[in-house]
């Protein structure tokens, strides 16, 4: 009992220290220098708009007036709106988002620990938590973005599915698919986990209850996105409006290899850095394949290839907020204490850099 609690306390310490680094070098230094801390930047005003006014009927955003908030799925902003209303503080919805995101991040870390501990051991589990907590990209788990909810629901899908609780996993999958478009892809890792647990032959024979339970889970998981699509059809007349409106962000389907190649050609620019992040993500994906972690591999590869098929924008954020990346890093660093320490120090420096960059509205933080 005491040991079980000691893990939570250890994770809580890591969480508090990492968030203090973000707060001190981010919002607090911003208060000191500018007296107006800015947490709501880039995509955040879109969420803020949904929380305050709901979804738009007619596009009006960006210079060309063709952007609309349909691109942002409802689970995160609507949860914030409901909680803000319940607490009677709708005007403080950004603070509510900040608090809820941090709570979600903490619980996500705890379930990450439990999941990795069961799959590997305690040491790798704690290293995964440590690396994820102090990752430079962990600032996205604290600001009003969807990353924190996405992480929590994603790890809960893996955790519940891994423990045979498929209906819980499916419900978390439904929340995940209503949080980000990529969330709907969770059905593929779920399928792999089911095949791993029961065997393909047993599953498709439909002789046991679990075959039906798995099929039901696979159907429940994308419901979040399906419900949102029905909402969009009723409101705008286009169930795929969230996809079609991407034209306003310049996202159009292209060959991912071509996108990657173009990024690599532009040395030391934002695109080049994003291309490097993509290569890093792809390498990590294949490492998970090598380790026969098929569910993690499939989710990583889909989560990289699909955004890469449109543009390099924000791809480092998409990759470095996925938990399997940190499990893979822990496995790689497992027997190399010196390298582990080095990566940890680099991560902290990166976290400080990203915190300062965020409050200074640097373009690469988008």
């Amino acid at each position, binding site marked *: 009992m005491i040991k079980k609690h000691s893990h939570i306390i250890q994770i809580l310490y890591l969480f508090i220290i990492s968030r203090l680094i973000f707060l001190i070098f981010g919002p607090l230094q911003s208060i000191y220098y500018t007296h107006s801390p800015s947490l709501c930047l880039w995509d955040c005003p879109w969420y803020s708009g949904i929380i305050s006014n709901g979804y738009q009927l007619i596009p*009006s955003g960006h210079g060309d*007036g063709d952007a609309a908030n349909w691109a942002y799925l409802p689970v995160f902003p609507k949860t914030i709106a409901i909680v803000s209303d319940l607490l009677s503080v709708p005007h403080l919805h950004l603070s509510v988002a900040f608090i809820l995101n941090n709570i979600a991040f903490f619980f996500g870390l705890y379930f990450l620990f439990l999941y990795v501990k069961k799959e590997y051991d305690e040491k790798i589990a704690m290293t995964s938590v440590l690396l994820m907590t102090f990752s430079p990209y962990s600032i996205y788990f604290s600001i009003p973005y969807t990353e924190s909810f996405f992480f929590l629901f994603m790890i809960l899908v893996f955790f519940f599915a891994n423990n045979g609780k498929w209906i819980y996993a499916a419900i978390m999958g439904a929340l995940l698919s209503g949080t980000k478009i990529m969330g709907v892809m969770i059905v593929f890792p779920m399928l792999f986990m089911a095949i791993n647990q029961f065997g393909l032959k047993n599953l498709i024979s439909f002789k046991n209850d679990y075959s039906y339970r798995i099929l039901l889970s696979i159907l429940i998981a994308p*419901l979040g996105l399906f419900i949102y699509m029905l909402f969009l059809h009723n409101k705008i007349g*286009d169930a795929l409006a969230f996809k079609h409106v991407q034209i306003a962000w310049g996202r159009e389907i292209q060959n991912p290899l071509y996108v990657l190649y173009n990024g690599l050609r532009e040395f030391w620019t934002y695109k080049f850095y994003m291309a490097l992040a993509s290569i890093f993500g792809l390498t990590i994906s294949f490492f998970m394949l090598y380790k026969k972690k098929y569910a993690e591999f499939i989710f990583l590869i889909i989560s990289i290839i699909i955004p890469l098929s449109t543009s390099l924008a924000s791809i480092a954020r998409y990759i470095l907020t996925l938990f399997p990346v940190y499990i893979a890093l822990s496995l790689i660093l497992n027997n190399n204490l010196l390298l582990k320490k080095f990566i940890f120090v680099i991560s902290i420096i990166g976290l400080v850099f990203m915190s300062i960059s965020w409050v200074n509205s640097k373009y690469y933080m988008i």
Partner: protein
Amino acid sequence: MSKKTFYIILIFLIASFEIYVFNKILHPNVNDHYQLYYIDKKLNTWSHGEGIQYTKGTILDDTKVQRFLSRKGWLRIKKSPYLFFRDGASIYFKTGPVKQYNGILTLKIISDEFHIIKVKINNKYIENKIMPPRNTDIKFIFDKTILNRDKVNSIEFKLTNYNTNLAIAFKSLKIE
């Protein structure tokens, strides 16, 4: 009720709901402007309330034609007052339920090179012309038999046997 029956009922209900939403995906209920800009990705500009409705009698010159232009095929050259076209350049517009249509489409010749210009209105070729000398206008005249009254009209421009994209420019379109 057994667990298995309960699962089968749920599977049936959820699958039916998802098929229903799939059907909605395949049948969007949007106006032509939205369809052309967001779904078909054919239109260059999202022009809000104005859409692609053409007001009878208006002269669309290169300063007013912007919201009717296709995403692809048009070329603006710095310091040149002309709007050039290349393969795939189109203009989309709706006329509304008017009874008479007499249209004049005017293009301007910029170079002396030999060209064949093909203009298709609603997928019907209206004329092919061999290029006259530089700085003259070519006029394409069409009537009500070729335009749609309720649907979107498209005028597509094509050059064949060309060496350069800068030979012919759009000048104006007028329908009355």
